[in-house]
């Protein structure tokens, strides 16, 4: 009989970990709140830097974990400590005893409506990065004009912002903005695109190429200054104000579409789990790893491990790598126990 490992969260972290645990000879039980696997990436269109299809990634992972036990639309009701493991009660009535648990509960997209000055949900043509990906995936969106003339991207929405309750950088938004700006230019070659940034944090492999390409081939303009407020003009367009910090002048621009790069916020479900399993929460609100260098996958509780964005903003490849590392950690933990 194969040993159970409960994986909380069926996003890419949970899926990759399940795949690895299957290969290592365990019986992973994936618990997912939603009615589908894949999490945020599952709703994304293309992934930088290779512009690979997010759907293909999820489909591929999904096929490889068909032997795992997957509970969709299921929540964890309680986690109780046993003598050498945990008793996990699920909302579908299933009760699992396991010696090891993986928390892969991910993040929550920052609710852009909370940045009231940007008017998400108030103005007709303000959308988020996530809305844009959904549109790229074919979901109709009345907020996106047929042929937008002027398009703006606002970086750091809900990130690096005390007022939004998140001082940290969400890491992926700069690159996402550059990627999406390029994609917008591909869809609407005549559009003028401005990215409003505070710092361009393009740290990863090939990211700088994207930035250069965005300037060189697509003529996307980068304006250093955070958008201060958005208003709607008489003809239903948006008036966006910012300071061009490089010239020290206030800027005003009329746009047909404004895309807010909503950052990664803590998942409230994760906070609930932390309370149930008595896991430590870090100062940024995310789960606290045992340490942030060697043991990013380890929690303060024996047998409970972390993978992915539940400990902080991560890119897709980082999340996948962490999931693999966590699977190995679990394997080692369980081996040692035997």
């Amino acid at each position, binding site marked *: 009989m194969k040993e159970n490992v409960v994986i909380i969260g069926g996003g890419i972290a949970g899926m990759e970990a399940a795949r690895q645990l299957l290969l290592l000879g365990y019986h992973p039980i994936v618990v997912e709140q939603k009615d589908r696997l894949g999490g945020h990436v599952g709703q994304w269109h293309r992934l930088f830097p290779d512009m690979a299809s997010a759907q293909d990634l999820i489909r591929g992972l999904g096929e490889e974990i068909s032997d795992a036990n997957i509970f969709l639309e299921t929540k964890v009701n309680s986690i109780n400590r046993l003598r050498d493991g945990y008793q996990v009660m699920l909302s579908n009535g299933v009760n699992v005893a396991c010696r090891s648990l993986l928390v892969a509960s991910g993040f929550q997209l920052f609710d852009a*409506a909370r940045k*009231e*000055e940007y*008017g*998400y*949900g*108030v*103005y*007709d043509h303000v959308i988020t990065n996530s809305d844009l990906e959904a549109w790229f995936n074919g979901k109709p969106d009345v907020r996106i004009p047929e042929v937008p003339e002027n398009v703006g991207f606002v970086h750091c929405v809900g990130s690096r912002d005390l007022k939004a309750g998140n001082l940290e950088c969400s890491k992926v938004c700069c690159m996402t903005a550059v990627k999406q700006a390029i994609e917008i230019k591909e869809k609407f070659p005549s559009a003028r695109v401005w990215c409003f940034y505070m710092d361009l944090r393009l740290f990863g492999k090939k990211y700088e190429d994207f930035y250069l390409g965005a300037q060189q081939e697509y003529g996307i303009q980068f304006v250093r200054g955070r958008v201060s*407020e958005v*208003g*709607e*003009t*008489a003809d239903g367009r948006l*008036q966006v104000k910012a300071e061009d910090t490089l010239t020290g002048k206030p800027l005003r621009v009329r746009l047909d579409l404004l895309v807010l790069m909503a950052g990664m916020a803590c998942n409230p479900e994760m906070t609930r789990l932390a309370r149930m399993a008595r896991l430590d929460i870090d100062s940024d609100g995310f789960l606290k790893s045992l340490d942030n260098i060697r043991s990013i996958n380890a929690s303060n509780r024996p047998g409970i491990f972390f993978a992915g964005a539940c400990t902080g903003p991560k890119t897709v490849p980082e999340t996948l790598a962490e999931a693999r590392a966590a699977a190995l950690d679990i394997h080692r933990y369980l081996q040692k126990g035997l």
Partner: protein
Amino acid sequence: MIYEGKQKIWKDYQKEIPDDHWYYVRSCIRQNFFPASERKFTDITRNDLGKDVYETPYHTTCGGIAYHCDAIPQETAMTIVARQFALMTESGYENYVPSCVTSFGNYVEILETWREFPELETRIREQLWKACRREFNKPKYLAHTSDLIYHWRNEIAEKARYRLIDKETGEPVRMAEHIGCHYAKMFPSKGIGGAEYPYVLAGMIESWGGQVVDYPERRHCCGYGFRQYHMKANRGYCVSNTHKKFESMEPYGIQAILTNCPGCCYFMDRWQYVISEQTGKTYGKDGFGIPVFTYEELAGLVLGYDPWDLGLQLHQVAVEPFLDRIGVEYDPKAKYLGLNKEDLLKPELPTNLKCF
């Protein structure tokens, strides 16, 4: 504009407002600009709505204007405020309502500061005691007079003689609202509707039949700016801000502006004259300006008060086109008659801004 989106935000920013028993404090500058507004507030609340609104002649300025002009330190303002609270306490009230937005902001700021730094409150209490042997309780509820009118807007609407509807077309009157900066920009949670999409004035306009029109520079300062205006050299900067607002408003065909701050009402009214002198441009129809009202004046108008009793002749921008639009009855000849029906003589006319 997605109206439901705004409603969602408005729902997030509501505050508890007791229905009765308010200790009322007047604005120091407002009585010079639009003296009837405060008087009519007491009339409307006491007579029309039957509320207990108490005031005492012993109260002073709250110190906010001097504080915002960098003329006094905050501690001085705090001590002044402490005395105001002492007067309220002595009068047996615990709901405090100032008529000035800057006062309101000043009170909120001071109460929040005391909450964060209780030792400061203790020191102010000592200073007040040393200065005038008074003691005070902090108000249980703090509201701005516009909050109260907002609170009672539907009762006013029920008693209203006129509605904000164009008599000719039957269309709602297109109105812009302008909120004083000190109302909620410092403490968004203290204003009805928050800081980005305040509802306090929009609620009145909607309730009385008008249509609220949003425009891009809605949030922008009226062009007073306290110490900016008080330095004559900086007044060009002040009026430029007002100019920016009116330029932004222009395409929307706005028929009137409702304000809740003494300075805003005054400057948005008077600067229209200065702008018209300097640029030759007016923003209303046929060479008129856009009339700017206080919420008391607008409440008074819909309730059927005589426009000249509401002091509307003290506005630079002529209000008659607006009165005609919603069908308010008035005697054009009585515009410049004093209380004793004595002729006050007509004021000198501007070059470009049409006044009648």
